[in-house]
């Protein structure tokens, strides 16, 4: 047993954990901005899928990775704005609109991928992001190779957590955004545009979901496949519930999920437990549900989440 544990908990394990957490952090933190403004965006699973495709395709043809990232983020923003049109401007059901966005975006990603690449005999690939060691810091024993020997996007994800906490809790913009999500009537009376803040929240969520999708097809892997997201968008929404709508706790949830995911990958590879590997794939989802059940009783949901706002109604 000890042998197995020491085999699993090596530096490579923790480095992998941080890589696995990265797209989840992007998705979760992004979604936090729209939910704190009062809009649940169930579209992020589809947005990640579509952005993984647009980012990959852009890089495939331009050979520029950062252009691909830009394309993925623009894709996400556009899908977020469409979600805004439906839920903010038209006040439609956030649940059904979000599912509509996911179905639409994943349909579009399949359609355009097939249109662009046809059905080639070998999977089209790009030269993906490479690891960028941070000078000096990457030389620190243990922590260096785990944290500071990663993709550039990983560093961005790690920085985004404190930055978003600061934006949400310490800036006037963040205060307004949270007020819009808690008490839109009060925000409106104080001259804050509920519509504008909700659109901004959705645009941020879209951009970061796009980044998450691009990370998967352009850094974690070097190709786009139909299963590239496989539920990570939904997991992000669960992590926000788990994290009680707080950036720090949600990010902690992302690391916890990544820990279980990295663990199941190692267990799969170790071959110690003889069950079909899908049993391991199931584990992170089961633990996410259990985690939600443990914290949901005292959930701190933004008061105006799911509620459309109409100026003229009282």
């Amino acid at each position: 047993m000890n042998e197995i544990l020491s085999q699993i908990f090596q530096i490579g394990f923790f480095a992998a954990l941080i890589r696995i957490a990265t797209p989840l952090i992007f998705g979760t933190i992004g979604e936090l901005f729209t939910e704190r403004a009062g809009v649940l965006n169930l579209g992020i699973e589809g947005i990640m899928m579509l952005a993984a495709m647009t980012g990959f395709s852009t890089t495939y043809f331009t050979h520029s990775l950062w252009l691909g990232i830009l394309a993925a983020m623009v894709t996400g923003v556009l899908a977020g704005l469409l979600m805004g049109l439906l839920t903010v401007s038209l006040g439609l059901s956030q649940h059904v609109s979000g599912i509509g966005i996911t179905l639409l975006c994943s349909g579009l990603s399949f359609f355009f991928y097939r249109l662009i690449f046809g059905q080639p005999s070998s999977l089209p690939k790009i030269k993906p992001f490479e690891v960028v060691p941070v000078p000096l810091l990457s030389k620190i024993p243990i922590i260096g190779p785990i944290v500071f020997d990663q993709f550039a996007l990983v560093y961005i994800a790690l920085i985004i957590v404190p930055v978003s906490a600061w934006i949400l809790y310490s800036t006037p913009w963040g205060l307004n955004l949270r007020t819009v999500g808690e008490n839109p009537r009060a925000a409106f009376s104080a001259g804050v545009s509920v519509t504008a803040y909700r659109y901004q929240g959705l645009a941020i969520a879209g951009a970061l979901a796009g980044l998450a999708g691009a990370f998967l097809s352009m850094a974690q892997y070097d190709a786009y496949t139909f299963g590239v997201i496989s539920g990570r968008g939904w997991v992000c929404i669960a992590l926000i519930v788990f994290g009680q709508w707080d950036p720090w706790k949600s990010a902690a949830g992302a690391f916890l999920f990544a820990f279980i995911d990295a663990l199941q990958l190692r267990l799969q590879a170790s071959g110690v437990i003889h069950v079909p590997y899908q049993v391991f794939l199931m584990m992170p989802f089961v633990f996410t549900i259990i985690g939600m059940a443990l914290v949901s009783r005292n959930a701190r949901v933004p008061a105006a989440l799911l509620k459309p706002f109409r100026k003229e109604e009282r």
Partner: protein
Amino acid sequence: MTFRLEPREHTPVWLNALLPLLAVFATLVICSGLIKLAGASVFSAYAILFKSALNSRFNLVETAVKATPLILTGLAVVVAFRAKFWNIGAEGQLLAGAMAAAYLGALKSFPGWSLIPLMIVGGALAGAIWAAIPAILKTRYKVDDVVTTLLLNFVIYYGMMALLNGPWKDPLSGYPDSPDILPAAEFPILLKATRLHLGVVVAVVATLLIWFLVRRTTLGFSITAVGENPKASSYAGMSVSKVIFLAAAISGGLAGLAGVGEVGGLHFQVMAGISPGYGYTGIVIAMLARLNPLGVIPSAVFFAIIITGAEAMSRATGVPVFLADVIQGTALVTMLIALLFNQYRLRFKRVSHE
């Protein structure tokens, strides 16, 4: 000139039927842009799509066979959404029903005649149980139903794949297919030399029963009341938790039946691709049917046409077959927008510059 939405006092009857048609028309117009992008003629692509699903006895039957699971998942979503139980898990509940049917249908110790009823009851029960988990999590622990129903889809999918790669793996070929059900468990064929099976009857009977449930029974009334106003229903003496639980179980049972039909009538086994997203399409179907059980049949037939027709269209014109997926997503969005005209009317007025 500017416009605003004004609340309607009551909805004219003709609007109820017109809105889904408008949404479908708008969807086809929007998606024609994609056909053009793919370099095909819009008119001939759509013509092939609809014709190939309807132009012969064989193709009509195939469309009906495709519509069968869609009717059941559509009904599943209708019941759940009426109670505002956001069951996005029909996909997983379908898989639960399919696995139960594959297991029960292969039991040699039971008399042959009992297998089909056993599969139907067992499959519906399996779906109901799988839907009961998120219902209990919602009513007892206040866990968001959207997320749990979705995540449970992944849990059961991987569970199924583990079974197919473990105990159920074909020992000879090594394929991840479950053992075939016994011949006595195969659904009878209704039309000679076609694939029209008993499942179609199950789907139509289920539609009538759900219509009766929703329109004529106390439970059906409670489900709608809880969905519209849980607080008022609670004051009126209904047990909101119980109603949500029952709605979820019925919903899951219907989705489970969809899985039973696919195993008993079509594939006679469970394999990885047993449901290409029928559970998710059920959401689109239910919304297009405006959560009316009787509306589910035309709505499901429409999407069966789109899904079967898209393959022929893709072969003939080279437009990617995934147009069918885009149409589903677009239809959900356009239908949502169309529903606005149910509650509001568009009023144009001139802006006065004073």
